[in-house]
């Protein structure tokens, strides 16, 4: 098909989709309205189980099985990326040249690292209480290490971060989630049922299995992001050659 014909097909498709979307949007309950049947019920259920952050309650209690699916997608895509970006036999690695970083950037970068790490861990740990949780905190923790790359250079990042450990951490996070679910079966309830005591409202140990599943996701996401960035960095900076 010529480029012109393809553009015509695309334009027809986009216009038709746009018309359908606008027609649908005009029939949707209007923005900001008071009618949220699922939301109201989810909030009630979360409060019954002493989980202050209802979003975490939905993710790790009411829809915990759905989150297991999401986590597995994450796990599978990291696995796929690791396989695709590994060094093949006909490629070789070269040491990237050392670069000089301005002294101020070095100083502030190194100062920001422990702060960022702490914020990330805090966000993971308080997922059942305040906005945050394993998904968000995991990303923050993982990016904190990469301040070393920004502030010093790539070899410094490599010395501190052993990728093998994070690959294991990724698998352990996924396994911990699956096994916590089995705990529900052992207690005589359904898979991933919230069988632990719900604890005192608004304390760290509230929400039953929510903090455990949250921590498992935190470990998995942090490890996954470290592994992903490690593969991309090594492809972009180190690996050379390969077949034509």
């Amino acid at each position, binding site marked *: 098909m010529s480029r012109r014909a393809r553009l015509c097909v695309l334009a027809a498709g986009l216009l038709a989709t746009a018309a359908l979307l606008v027609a649908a949007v005009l029939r949707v309950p209007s923005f900001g309205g008071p009618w949220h049947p699922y939301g109201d019920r989810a909030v009630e259920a979360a409060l019954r189980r002493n989980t202050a952050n209802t979003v975490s309650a939905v993710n790790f209690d009411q829809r915990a099985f759905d989150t297991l699916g999401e986590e597995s997608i994450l796990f599978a895509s990291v696995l796929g990326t690791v396989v695709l970006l590994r060094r093949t036999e006909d490629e070789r690695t070269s040491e990237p040249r050392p670069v000089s970083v301005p002294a101020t950037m070095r100083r502030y970068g190194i100062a920001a690292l422990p702060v960022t790490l702490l914020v990330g861990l805090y966000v993971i740990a308080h997922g059942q209480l305040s*906005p945050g949780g394993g998904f*968000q905190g995991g*990303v923050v923790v993982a*990016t904190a290490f*990469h301040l070393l790359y920004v502030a010093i250079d790539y070899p410094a990042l490599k010395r501190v971060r052993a990728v093998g450990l994070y690959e294991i951490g990724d698998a352990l996070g996924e396994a911990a989630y699956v096994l916590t679910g089995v705990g529900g079966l052992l207690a005589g309830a359904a898979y991933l049922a919230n069988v632990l005591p719900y604890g005192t409202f608004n304390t760290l140990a509230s929400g039953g299995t929510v903090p455990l599943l949250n921590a498992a996701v935190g470990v998995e996401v942090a490890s996954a*992001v470290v592994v*992903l960035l490690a593969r991309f*960095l090594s492809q*972009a900076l180190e690996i050379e050659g390969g077949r*034509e």
Partner: protein
Amino acid sequence: MADPAVDDVLIVASLLFVAAAATAAVLNRDPARQAVVLSLLGLGLAVLFTVLQAPDVGLSQLGVGSALTPLMILLTVRKVRRQRERRDGERHGGKRRG
């Protein structure tokens, strides 16, 4: 944020910014520049989610959209450029660059 009128102004402003940033990200054909616009879009989305009273999603979007995705795109661009330079170098019989 007690005043509903202020809420509405903030929501409309961030919606318009997000729409503009998304358009700019698509129209920037150079992937390296697109990555920068994408990180702006990520930042705009994080603000929009926060004014829509979704701080959980805002946090998530802030880490992923403004840092992780653009960084991975930039690293891919670097790898692809090196690969292309190498191919061009070999095709012209010259010595491989960079």
